[in-house]
């Protein structure tokens, strides 16, 4: 499998298209398609594989030389057993442990994890590029040289790792990054701050610290009256959800700014900025997670907020009034355009008796603004739904057309004065990574075009071959990340703790519970 482009971003005035293939970023000139620059996110040592080495930033994407090697246990002779004082479960069969970890992350033979790019965003003026990566939980800021002096195109100004993986970030006023993590906390970081190059001192192994010193330190920590985020850079806590934070959208109207956040527990929260201690309202109406938020700028009053995620509908909010303006069902359109998505799977046909389960399959993977309308992407489907207002009904959105793509939709970038769209797709057979579309204002529909930029992107993006045994991992971790946010409860399961932060957190909780019992 050739790795598709999971993220694509366009910036008009600087004439740039940015694409992300796994951990590699490409910069193109939008008008000509010229490839200007590339950058590759460094691999991250797998914390659970002893002595794993990150690979230098300059090397291209990791490619395990053979599947055999990728599956074999840790390199021979290297792993020293973990420190004697560590918890028992860590001493569990090392080999088994490694195998388990391999099965959840794309690792190379040295145990480095592939650090895929999660989001690309430019400042309004196009001079700064902010990139979030998955495995090192970092936010990187690049200086983009625009205009004539295009020598070094990207200069990495800072790398700031958050305590938890970045769920989403937004850029505010060209000087502040709002970064939300998987724990639900949102921090404000100054955009232009160079990260300090002082490396963190390696922690002394637990076992080497005398027991009394350890206990004294722990007792001291317990007395703390503030949360220690241990972030070695300027940051301000902005707001916190007790849920995975999935989307941040700042909306500025006149002198006022609001921050709208969406989380995995169906909430949309509207908070003041910079007085972020004042929550203005909650917009409650979703039954599934909220992973996409959009405030269409063609509504000059910015009075609409469109939200979507784990539901088979999108909601158009009159957000200032806290009211639902429109609830637009998607099922009919999806069924008409791509019935395979909601069709019952043959193997478990007897079980799919109830209606509700079918609707579960529709998940919105993104909302994108186009002039006078919005595009709605459906995860795991090769379609884009195009909603617009009409002159007769300027205050309602209606489905205008469905765009059929050569592969499952991954991301969309809209650019140009006569609107064009570059859509990245997962098209295994056709080997096409992006398709280009142009709005035909006469026919009022989007037509497929083959232009310089799509040709160049398809031709010049580094082709990353994903090993066979990594297909599923890449698909679930990088390409199709939205549907996995759904809460699942097995039949008959009731109070069993299920920690969305994953199995490790669950085990940790279990351990804590046992500790508490002993105490």
């Amino acid at each position, binding site marked *: 499998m050739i790795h598709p482009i999971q993220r694509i971003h366009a910036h008009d005035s600087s004439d740039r298209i940015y694409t992300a293939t796994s951990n590699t970023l490409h910069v193109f000139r939008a008008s000509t398609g010229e490839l200007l620059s590339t950058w590759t996110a460094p691999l991250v040592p797998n914390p659970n594989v002893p002595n794993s080495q990150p690979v230098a930033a300059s090397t291209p994407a990791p490619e395990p030389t053979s599947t055999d090697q990728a599956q074999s246990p840790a390199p021979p002779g290297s792993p020293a057993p973990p420190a004697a004082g560590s918890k028992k479960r860590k001493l569990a069969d090392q080999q088994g442990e490694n195998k388990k970890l391999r099965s959840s992350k794309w690792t190379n033979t040295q145990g480095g994890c592939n650090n895929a790019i999660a989001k690309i965003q430019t400042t309004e003026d196009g001079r700064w590029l902010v990139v979030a990566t998955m495995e090192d939980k970092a936010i990187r800021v690049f200086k983009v040289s625009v205009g004539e002096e295009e020598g070094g195109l990207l200069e990495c100004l800072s790398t700031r790792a958050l305590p938890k993986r970045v769920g989403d970030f937004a850029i505010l006023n060209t000087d502040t990054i709002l970064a939300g993590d998987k724990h639900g906390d949102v921090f404000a970081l100054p955009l232009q701050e160079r990260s300090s190059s002082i490396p963190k001192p390696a922690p002394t192994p637990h076992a080497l610290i005398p027991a009394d010193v350890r206990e004294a330190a722990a007792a001291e920590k317990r007395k*703390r009256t503030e949360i220690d985020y241990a972030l070695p850079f300027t940051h301000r806590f902005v707001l916190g959800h007790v849920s995975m934070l999935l989307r941040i959208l700042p909306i500025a109207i006149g002198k006022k700014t609001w921050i709208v956040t969406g989380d995995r527990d169906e909430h949309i929260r509207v908070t003041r900025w910079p007085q972020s201690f004042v929550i203005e309202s909650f917009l409650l109406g979703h039954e599934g997670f909220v992973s996409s938020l959009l405030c269409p700028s063609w509504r000059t009053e910015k009075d609409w907020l469109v939200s979507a995620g784990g539901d088979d509908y999108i909601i158009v909010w009159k957000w200032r009034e806290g009211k639902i303006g429109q609830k637009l069902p998607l099922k009919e359109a999806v069924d008409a355009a791509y019935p395979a998505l909601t069709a019952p799977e043959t193997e478990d046909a007897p079980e799919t008796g109830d209606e509700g389960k079918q609707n579960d399959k529709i998940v919105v993977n993104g909302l994108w603004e186009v002039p006078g309308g919005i595009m709605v992407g459906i995860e795991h489907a090769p379609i884009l739904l195009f909603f617009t207002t009409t002159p007769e009904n300027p205050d309602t959105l209606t489905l205008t057309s469905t765009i059929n793509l050569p592969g499952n939709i991954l991301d969309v970038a809209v650019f140009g004065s006569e609107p064009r769209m570059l859509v990245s797709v997962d098209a295994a057979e056709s080997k096409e990574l992006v398709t280009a579309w142009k709005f035909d204002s006469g026919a009022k529909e989007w037509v497929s075009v083959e232009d310089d930029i799509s040709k160049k992107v398809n031709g010049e993006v580094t082709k990353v071959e994903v090993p066979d045994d990594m297909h599923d991992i890449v698909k679930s971790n990088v390409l199709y990340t939205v549907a996995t946010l759904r809460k699942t409860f097995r039949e008959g399961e009731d109070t069993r703790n299920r920690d969305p932060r994953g199995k490790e957190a669950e085990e940790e909780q279990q351990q804590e519970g046992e500790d508490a019992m002993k105490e």
Partner: protein
Amino acid sequence: MTSTSACPAPSTAGAPAGGRTGKRKEYRIVRKGDVKLPKKKFYRQRAHANPFSDHNLEYPHSPDQMDWSTHFPAFFPPRNESETTAEHSSTQLQKQVEIADIGCGFGGLIVSLGPKLPDTLMLGMEIRQQVTEYVEERIIALRRQYEEGESENGHNYQNISVIRGNAMKFLPNMFHKGQLRKMFFCFPDPHFKARKHKARIISPGLASEYAYIVKPGGIIYTITDVEDLHNWMARHLEDHPLFDRMTPEELEGDVCVETMMGDTEEGKKVTRNNGNKFVACFRRREDPEWSD
């Protein structure tokens, strides 16, 4: 015969009363709706729950969809035959819930406060299912005792109720902006370890959420026997621009503080053990003017 006599004494911490023998289940089925107060030992549950988990909870999608009719039936007009259940729910509640006890445990505070503030609707919230079940049964029993003329204090307990829920996640689903007059945090889980401090019920992020739920002038009450936790809660609410710490003079004679000190289950336990109780209360300020 009550099943208590037939139940062997709990042997280990891991096996609560009747948990393994099935007596627990049996007791609860037999006594459901009984006029006698339920016995706590059949409902005990480990004192910690992970607030970050997806507990299989039921909660309304928004406060407008909250069905209060099962909680406070006496505060609804009698249902017309033409009405559907949905029509009959939340919109017709004659009063709003104004007091919430977050982590109400076995319900000591609301049961004690109910008769003292008979015209105020109050709701206990508890994340542990079995403990919530106990409080439900306790309230049903108290209501029945009144109906059958066995009440000790002549209060009908129609103004108190309990709900299972995760207050750290779903308060805005249940209450409108500025709906509450009082909120209680009594003897919350201390989460001693620094690593677990984020799970504490008071945090900078949650304080903003509580400020959203509580109306200006409303009060947040906190009490704990753990000094470190007290310092933590006090610090975070003092630092929050929407709360003012109340002075001892302001709190003098406040029936809620007395009840919180003396009538909560934990409060009684701490008294028995001669422990300290730390109280801190905060008044919700008005929202400030917008600043640019």
